[in-house]
């Protein structure tokens, strides 16, 4: 692998254990949040739009959905980072792809959480 002049590719930045721990903490949260969401979505499937809005207007559901989106986008970006680091070797491709994925994930996370609040409070 060609070395760059930046310290980015030169070993530990003391952040490896944070990634490891964050992945597992978000995984634990998602066990509860994702099963809760799937159970609720199965109860809403085939019902009219109004039922979804009614469901979303219950504070517990809006808060649960916001937590789900926060935890799942976080967990997903950590996993995608590992995949990118394993399979994209050239630094000039690897880092821009990682930043793009992180940026898009943040955008969609904020967008979906804003949408939850918008529908819940409208």
């Amino acid at each position, binding site marked *: 692998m060609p070395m760059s002049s930046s310290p980015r590719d030169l070993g530990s930045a003391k952040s490896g254990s944070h990634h490891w721990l964050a992945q597992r903490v978000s995984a634990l949260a998602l066990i509860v949040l994702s099963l809760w969401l799937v159970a609720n979505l199965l109860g809403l499937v085939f019902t009219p739009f109004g039922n979804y809005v009614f469901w979303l207007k219950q504070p517990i559901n809006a808060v649960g959905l916001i937590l789900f989106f926060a935890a799942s986008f976080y967990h997903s970006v950590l996993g995608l980072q590992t995949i990118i680091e394993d399979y994209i070797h050239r630094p000039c491709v690897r880092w821009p792809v990682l930043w793009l994925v992180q940026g898009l994930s943040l955008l969609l996370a904020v*967008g979906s959480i804003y949408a939850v609040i918008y529908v819940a409070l409208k």
Partner: protein
Amino acid sequence: MRPLSPHLQIYRPQITSVLSILHRITGFALAIGLLLLAGLIISAAFGEQSFDLVRGQLSTWYGYILLMGWSWAFYYHLCNGIRHLFWDMGKGFELSTVATSGWAVVLASLTMTVVTWVYVVQRSSIVQELLRNANVQ
């Protein structure tokens, strides 16, 4: 250069290696599925028409194939993720346990997927009947 693993192609696939790469593949698939879930909620913010447009795409044959794939990917990644969490606690590392828990994950994820879709199909007919009765009245 850091040392590279031997070429994967020369290995006979084993339950451990196949399930390991499946965890990554299902995780990637779920990252794509999350985009859809985000799209669904964002479309709801735009109103009923755009929400039903997205939902309509999911009620097609390709929509159902994708949803079935995602549901299995979800249950698999969930069950195998719990298996990983036990390993993180230092539990279940014996080779026989690793194989048993692996097959348990396969069986559990398939069972949960089938139960989910049996429920969805039954619910579909029940909801349709309710809507028909509502239209008659």
